[in-house]
């Protein structure tokens, strides 16, 4: 039996964009990135559309994203 579970976005309207992006990313991650293939990222445009939707949802829901300190390593924001 194939169990198919799908995850939602935090913004309900963004779920389709999220799933499309995730599919693209997971493929790139497994087939290119982990094999240290540095050829370009095919998911950039998809990510932009998805991001635009998510940022709107975060504002609408008042999710407190900014100003949270991590215990992670200090780093300046890397170039994309």
């Amino acid at each position, binding site marked *: 039996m194939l169990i198919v579970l799908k995850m939602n976005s935090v913004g309900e309207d963004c779920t389709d964009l999220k799933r499309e992006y*995730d599919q693209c990313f997971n493929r790139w*991650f*497994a087939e290119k990135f982990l094999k240290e293939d540095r050829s370009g990222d095919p998911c950039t445009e998809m990510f932009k559309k998805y991001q635009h939707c998510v940022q709107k949802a975060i504002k609408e829901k008042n*999710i407190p994203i900014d100003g949270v300190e991590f215990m992670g*390593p200090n780093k300046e924001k890397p170039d994309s």
Partner: protein
Amino acid sequence: MKIWSTEHVFSYPWETVIKAAMRKYPNPMNPNVVGVDVLDRNLDTDGRLHSHRLLSTEWGLPGIVRAILGTGHTRTYVKEHSIVDPEEKKMELYSTNITLTNLVSVDERLVYRPHPDNPEVTVLTQEAIITVKGVSLSSYLEGMMALRMSANARKGWDAIEWIIQNSERENVPLCELY
């Protein structure tokens, strides 16, 4: 403040485990996670992949707990930062709650690496700093939370195993599961 840590070995190679870790949700062990989004993702100058994600969790808290928390909102949010180094074979994940921060902070750090003695298996080291705020029973509550973290960690390992096995059983590579 309470510090909790644990270590676990997955009987799968590192690449298999982190592919599952990157796709951990949804899974039957974590039904409370109802939303996952990527906020930012980029490669640094060392070729490591940074991802910043937002998780929303729905606890279905009983009415009295909601009354104590003083909120009708039962959605809590967690922010995650992961770093994957494909050359060094190391994945780090940092997470912290961004809601209920006036009551409690749970900062977690997870590191996945191949086992030093056996490269076919993967070690996960996991630690958390738990701080309960403004309550006189704080060290007692922190102790209770540490116990809960052990139970949750076990669920997390089962979740990774489930993701790996669910794709193996169907002979579908992890990236094709959707």
